[in-house]
């Protein structure tokens, strides 16, 4: 192995010689350039003097022609141009004087020029005043006889001499410049050849020690490799370089993962393939590069396209790379897939996909960042058609407005308004059809600003069944109202003719009993009985149809007082039958007092009415069940009921006994059932024939009491 110092000494020597040569070449070239530019200056100077001389001559000719013009026409406008020409002649003369100040030959000619010019002007003035005082004829004569033309000819002669002098100088100066150029060329060629020789020598010297060079290169490669590995390690960011025209020149692992291209597939291609087609059409890739080049750095959040055509929202930073001299060498691009950042990582995606509803994640700008398969299905789009689109496209109203803080709302207010459950809006499918949706919004702050996750549920079916339910409920209510009305009107209107029948058969019975034959008496008795029974039925029907209509004001009442009221109404019955009615302590309950008293009255009344041979014993009690209901019971020692009739006894006009055994229409229990059901309760019976019955009824406990 050769000592390193020897190599560097050779290299130093080679560099030293090369630099020396360059200095010499540089100095000679500089000198050549200075001289050459001096010569150039003189050549330019000569052209300038020639030009000005011509200007001067034409100014003089213009003086001549304009004063003649005045003389011939008498028009003042000629005098204006005459005076302007004098001015420019004076200026041109002064310029020529300045330009030729270094040349004594030319300076010597100047007094002659000046003298001739003054003569010409003096003569012109004379003729002008002649024209004004003596008229055209005198002036024309003066021109003809005067020395005007002669002066101009002399003037031209002097100018020509000066021009000749300048042209002579021009030839001399051109030759001078050519000579200097030749010298410079020679030096440059010589210097270049020398430089090449030295470079070749140094190259040969360096080549001789390839192992040394290998070391240096290895060190460089090593450092480059480390740097590349560092970049490659980065998985979360796509990091790559572009040349000034936007072609990709490097590619890291993150880029491969995020964008889906392998390095060998993408290097050399233009980076515009990462943009959606519509952006390319608008010339966005070029615009991004221009903006980056202008400002040095450009950041944005927008949609990017993967190799498979799918889209994702990315945060992208472009940086312009410049060499020390400031010329653009390319760009670096660092981008990150926002849809996979933190909360929207793989887990979050999994969660979204598992959700039974359509899920859409929207950023503050109202663009869709992420969505699940249900969202694709519900709205009829492919995922990549929706990502990056405005959420307004699928939910035209009521959603995007909640996202954006504007002049009237601060971001905090906008955020507060986003929180919501069960907001009913309208969704729009790809095919343009609308459908009702319910959305739940859950906003959260993230590194990319506020992201809102919306769970969207298609509620078409629910709406349909709601509508159906509402319709059915409406129909049911109408039918109930009609029925109620019918029952009331029917019983009321039936009652009138029936009253006539009953009254007159009774009148007949009272006035003619025993005055007709015995058959007549019997027939009349049946008619009276029938009409009386009919009246009873109608009255009960009326009572039943009215039950629960009035007095639905629920307040806390004492159920014990309700029972006492019922017992007061039943006093006659109780006394007559010798019944013993007992009760436990009964609770305070929120319900309707009148109806509860009616229920007690009917139940206790029945208990006494359908008694066995024994003295009737009736006991009323109440217990609270596991839920929040009170269970009341009315127990008797009466006839009891066959279990097969447990349901039937609560039906209107259903009786277990004929009118001869027990009077009644079969309304009492039906009314109890109706009233209790209207109060939110229910009623049933437990019984065995000949062992007595227990009627239970339940009322809900309200207001937590």
């Amino acid at each position, binding site marked *: 192995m050769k000592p390193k110092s020897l190599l560097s000494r050779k290299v130093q020597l080679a560099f030293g010689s090369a630099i020396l040569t360059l200095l010499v070449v540089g100095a000679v070239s500089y000198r050549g350039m200075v001289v050459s530019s001096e010569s150039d200056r003189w050549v330019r100077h000569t052209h300038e003097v020639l030009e000005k001389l011509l200007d001067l001559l034409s100014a003089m000719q213009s003086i001549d022609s304009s004063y003649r013009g005045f003389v011939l026409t008498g028009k003042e406008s000629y005098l204006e141009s005459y005076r302007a020409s004098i001015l420019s002649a004076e200026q041109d003369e002064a310029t020529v004087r300045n330009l030729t100040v270094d040349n004594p030959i030319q300076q010597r000619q100047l007094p002659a020029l000046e003298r001739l010019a003054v003569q010409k002007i003096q003569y012109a003035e004379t003729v002008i005043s002649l024209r004004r005082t003596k008229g055209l004829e005198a002036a024309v004569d003066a021109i003809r006889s005067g020395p005007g033309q002669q002066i101009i000819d002399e003037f031209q002669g002097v100018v020509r001499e000066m021009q000749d002098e300048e042209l002579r100088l021009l030839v001399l100066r051109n030759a001078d410049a050519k000579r200097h150029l030749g010298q410079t060329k020679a030096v440059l060629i010589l210097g270049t050849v020398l430089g090449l020789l030295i470079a070749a020598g140094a190259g040969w010297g360096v080549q001789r020690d390839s192992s040394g060079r290998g070391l240096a290169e290895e060190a460089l490669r090593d450092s480059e490799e480390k740097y590349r590995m560092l970049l490659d390690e980065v998985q979360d960011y796509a990091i790559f370089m572009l040349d000034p025209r936007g072609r990709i020149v490097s590619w890291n692992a993150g880029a491969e993962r995020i964008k889906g291209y392998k390095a060998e597939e993408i290097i050399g291609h233009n980076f515009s393939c990462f943009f959606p087609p519509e952006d390319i059409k608008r010339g966005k890739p070029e615009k991004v590069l221009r903006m980056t080049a202008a400002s040095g750095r450009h950041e944005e959040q927008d949609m990017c396209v993967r190799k498979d055509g799918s889209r994702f929202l990315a945060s992208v930073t472009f940086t312009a790379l410049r060499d020390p001299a400031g010329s653009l060498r390319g760009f670096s691009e660092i981008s990150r897939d926002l849809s996979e950042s933190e909360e929207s990582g793989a887990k979050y995606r999994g969660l979204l996909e598992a959700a039974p509803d359509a899920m859409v994640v929207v950023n503050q700008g109202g663009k869709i960042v992420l969505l699940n398969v249900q969202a694709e299905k519900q709205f009829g789009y492919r995922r990549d058609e929706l990502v990056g689109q405005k959420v307004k496209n699928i939910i035209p109203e009521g959603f995007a407005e909640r996202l954006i803080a504007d002049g009237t709302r601060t971001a905090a207010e906008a955020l507060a308004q986003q929180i919501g459950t069960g907001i009913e809006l309208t969704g729009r499918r790809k095919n343009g059809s609308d459908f009702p949706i319910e959305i739940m919004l859950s906003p959260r702050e993230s590194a990319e600003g506020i992201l809102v996750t919306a769970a969207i549920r298609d509620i078409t079916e629910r709406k349909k069944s709601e509508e159906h339910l509402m319709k059915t409920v409406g129909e049911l209510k109408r039918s109930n109202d009609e029925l109620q009305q019918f029952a009331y009107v029917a019983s*009321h209107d039936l*009652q*009138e003719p*029936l*009253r*006539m029948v*009953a*009254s*007159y058969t*009774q*009148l007949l019975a*009272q006035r003619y009993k025993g005055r007709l034959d015995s058959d007549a008496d019997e027939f009349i008795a049946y008619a009276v009985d029938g009409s*009386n029974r009919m*009246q009873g039925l109608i*009255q009960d029907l009326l009572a039943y149809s009215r039950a629960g209509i*009035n007095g639905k004001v629920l307040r806390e009442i004492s159920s014990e007082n309700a029972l006492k009221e019922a017992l007061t109404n039943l006093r006659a019955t109780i006394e007559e039958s010798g019944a013993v009615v007992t009760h436990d302590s009964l609770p305070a309950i929120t319900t309707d007092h009148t109806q509860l008293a009616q229920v007690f009255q009917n139940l206790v009344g029945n208990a006494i009415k359908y008694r066995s041979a024994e003295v009737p014993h009736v006991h009323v009690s109440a217990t609270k069940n596991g839920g929040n209901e009170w269970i009341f019971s009315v127990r008797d020692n009466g006839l009891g009921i066959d279990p097969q009739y447990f349901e039937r006894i609560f039906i209107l006009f259903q009786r277990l006994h004929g009118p001869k055994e027990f009077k009644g229409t079969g309304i009492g229990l039906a009314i109890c059932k109706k009233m209790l059901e209207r109060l939110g309760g229910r009623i049933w019976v437990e019984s065995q024939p000949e062992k007595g019955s227990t009627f239970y009824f339940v009322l809900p406990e309200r207001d937590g009491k």
Partner: protein
Amino acid sequence: MMESMASVAVPIEVLLVEDSPGDVRLTREAFKDAKVHINLHVASDGTEAMAFLGREGKHANVPRPDLILLDLNLPKKDGREVLEEIKESPTLKSIPVVILTTSASEMDILRSYRLHANCYITKPVDLNGFLKVVKSIDSFWLSVVKLPREPRS
């Protein structure tokens, strides 16, 4: 006693406003046993009742009633309107009006008293009840109560 003896001499004019002939007949039957002599006039609907009270047309010579028995559910002009018109009329409002109707509706009862009905009776559905009610009207309104005597024009 002297008072009631004196009233026997002068017949009492009663206007029954009732559309059911059966009820009219029953009312007549009931009044048959009345202690006082009653002239029962009948109007079968509200319009006729107002014509009677205003002595219009064929009613030009009818007497002013001392008591009106008024049914509520009537053809043409309703009993409620008749009641309102009577009680708004300065000349008629002093005549006691007894509402005698099949309606037991709380609304009808309240409304009638608000319109200054003098009493409200629901017709009992059985014959004896009805007869008893009419008799009690007779004994209370036509015997016990002092009715206003306005100069007959």
